[in-house]
């Protein structure tokens, strides 16, 4: 069978066997959670509580500030012990609300016990999406509701759920699709109603046959199509997924809405489905803890704000000496240098590589092999972009489309000279955007 996909891309080893068939476990309540006010792209939320205050699980503790922002909810019940800058996955200190658990996990009475999708209008759903604190849970953490306010004159025809999970090692979305199929479908139907979209699609790489069959069974009679996708990275990159699913090309520099499409992660849909079903906003998520440096790899549902250290301890601790600790997948996840980093809404996993796996990279000049050119899904020339960036030739870099790079990492993965192309490109991109801001 000819499977749908996009052009170019790479085939890194999946390494998903360790956890792909392990049911999601529930992490015991942590003693303390650290909830950064900035877990999403956009303005940080504003605290509604003060130090010393008692809070209950699910209680709104910070309010969205502006359109591109979301509220934040307490993920455990207990006492607010601090509101102060704390270590964050970005490597910086970011203001966070710290809650010490009282061990009771008492659910806030302000929460409804659920919602009936039939009785909700599109506008009510959009409001609920926002009230649930939903952001893109695949990693980007873009506030979800914003996507459902398209610019005037644009109509959302398709809502596509991203179940590709193309990042190696990660299996949390896979497990959600198998175990929480109904919540995902409910979430998708709600998204479709909010957008007044005619059709829903769920793209899944074919290395998850159990997910595909569970979803296929669940969507019988619904205007939802399950799309098996070729196993290739970055199949879950938004525009690549849209192209694979619909053959529509989102113009460079434009948002998916230009192609009449909105994309959400399956985890985000599951979170919305859960909110509708039982009224619980986004205060926990499923992550994959894996890698050769973890003793007992697993998929585990954790309360937001749980520290990486607690999750690693629950997974049996390190296996041997850890070499690199990554939040998310190996292609795009940031490496961490401490363990008191909280799990956030967009954190999809913890990957621990062993010391032996961490290759000491000596970076050499480009030999112009063209392998990056054959890999770049955006049809850019990463070798030139890297060299322009290295020598600060920003005008040339921009002319060659550096701002269209989505930083998927395919070029860097494939480079035989081990050039840090993405790092160079990122640096140049931020210089370019900074200078644009300056000149207005």
């Amino acid at each position: 069978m000819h499977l749908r996909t996009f052009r170019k891309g790479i085939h890194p080893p999946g390494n998903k066997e360790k956890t792909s068939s392990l049911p999601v476990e529930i992490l015991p309540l942590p003693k303390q959670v650290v909830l950064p006010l900035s877990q999403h792209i956009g303005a940080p939320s504003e605290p509604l509580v003060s130090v010393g205050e008692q809070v209950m699980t699910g209680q709104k503790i910070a309010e969205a500030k502006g359109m591109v922002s979301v509220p934040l909810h307490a993920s455990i019940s207990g006492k607010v012990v601090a509101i102060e800058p704390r270590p964050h996955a970005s490597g910086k200190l970011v203001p966070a609300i710290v809650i010490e658990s009282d061990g009771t996990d008492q659910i806030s009475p302000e929460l409804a016990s659920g919602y009936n999708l039939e009785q909700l209008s599109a506008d009510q759903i959009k409001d609920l999406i926002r009230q649930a604190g939903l952001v893109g849970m695949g990693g980007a953490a873009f506030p979800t509701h914003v996507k459902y306010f398209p610019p005037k004159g644009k109509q959302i025809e398709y809502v596509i759920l991203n179940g590709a999970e193309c990042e190696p090692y990660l299996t949390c979305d896979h497990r959600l699709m198998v175990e929480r199929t109904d919540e995902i479908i409910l979430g998708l139907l709600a998204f479709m109603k909010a957008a007044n979209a005619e059709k829903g699609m769920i793209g899944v790489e074919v290395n998850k046959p159990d997910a595909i069959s569970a979803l296929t069974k669940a969507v019988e009679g619904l205007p939802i199509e399950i799309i098996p996708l070729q196993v290739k990275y970055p199949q879950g990159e938004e525009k690549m997924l849209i192209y694979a699913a619909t053959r529509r090309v989102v113009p460079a520099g434009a948002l998916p809405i230009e192609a009449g499409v909105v994309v959400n992660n399956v985890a985000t849909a599951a979170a919305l489905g859960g909110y509708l079903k039982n009224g619980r906003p986004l205060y926990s998520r499923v992550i994959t803890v894996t890698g050769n440096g973890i003793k007992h790899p697993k998929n585990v549902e954790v309360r937001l704000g749980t520290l990486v250290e607690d999750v690693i301890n629950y997974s049996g601790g390190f296996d041997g000496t850890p070499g690199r600790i990554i939040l998310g997948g190996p292609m795009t996840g940031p490496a961490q240098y401490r363990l008191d980093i909280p799990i956030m809404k967009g954190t999809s996993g913890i990957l621990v590589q062993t010391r032996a796996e961490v290759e000491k990279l000596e970076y050499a000049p480009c030999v112009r092999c063209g392998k990056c050119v054959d890999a770049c899904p955006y049809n850019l020339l990463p070798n030139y972009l890297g060299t322009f960036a290295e020598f600060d030739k920003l005008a040339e870099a921009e002319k060659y489309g550096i701002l269209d790079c989505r930083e998927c990492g395919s070029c860097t993965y494939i480079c035989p000279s081990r050039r840090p192309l993405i790092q160079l490109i990122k640096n140049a991109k931020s210089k370019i955007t900074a200078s644009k801001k300056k000149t207005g």
Partner: protein
Amino acid sequence: MLETEVVVSAPPHIRHGLTTERIMQLVVIALIPAALAGVGFFGWHALAIIISSVFSALLTEVLILKLMKRPVTIKDGSAAVTGLLLALIIPPTVPLWIPVVGSAFAIALGKQVFGGLGYNPFNPALIGRAFLVASWPSLMTKWRWPLNSLAWIGDRADAVSGATALGLLRDGIKGIPYKQLLIGNISGSLGETSALALLLGAIFLLIYKIIDWRIPAGYLGTVVIMALLMGEEPLFHLLAGGLILGAFFMATDYVTTPVTTKGRLIFGIGCGFLTMLIRKYGGFPEGVCYSILLMNITTPLLDRWTVPKKFGEVKTNG
């Protein structure tokens, strides 16, 4: 608390196993059949030429890098490949100082003078050969037929013993059996005569995706078309001379050829066009070396002219 030091680096945190070093190793492996064929046809002197050439290339690279106080990157294998390639494209009769001087020139003035691996505009091995031909033309055109390889021509054997297959064509002497051209027991450069051995290596490189099919396909395809247009025998032109070696091992050199797919195809076509022009009308019977060097000049332009359309690129003025 984290009790050990961990590595903090930018993603991606996994890399494909293929390194430049490994690529060069695979190229050397792919050239072994051709080198063995050369030694088989032309004897131990051929082996001595190969060893001198590789050794000289390595030594020159080390000396220059030390002299410039730069890290000695001999391990990347590129100098060894240059030395090996140069040995394969010079006559098997040359005295041993010829490959030594040629390789030293190729590395020093063909590569390091431009900044080393990745920066040289011309294929270093071809630069080495061009330098040798210009400096010692008589030594570089002294050919020898392997033992018992002239049966096809009968009693005129003495008259042709100093020419290559392409040279003979110029003198109007035809009739080398195709089987002999394929196997390679004919006169020619040390490692270029056995199309069979070279193709074996080429297939290996294609399977491992070390080289892009577009350049050899464009090159060989154009040679066939040009030969037909010129009223020549296409198969003869494919098998005789250095075409197979050039198309698969020289014109595919990463550093000196385009990175875009379209650019590579055009590069190959250009090589084929120039090769046949030189063979038919040029001052030399063979044109592979100069045609590739000439096309090397166009590489930056070809890259610039063939920048692919970005995904989702919209035409701005039309």
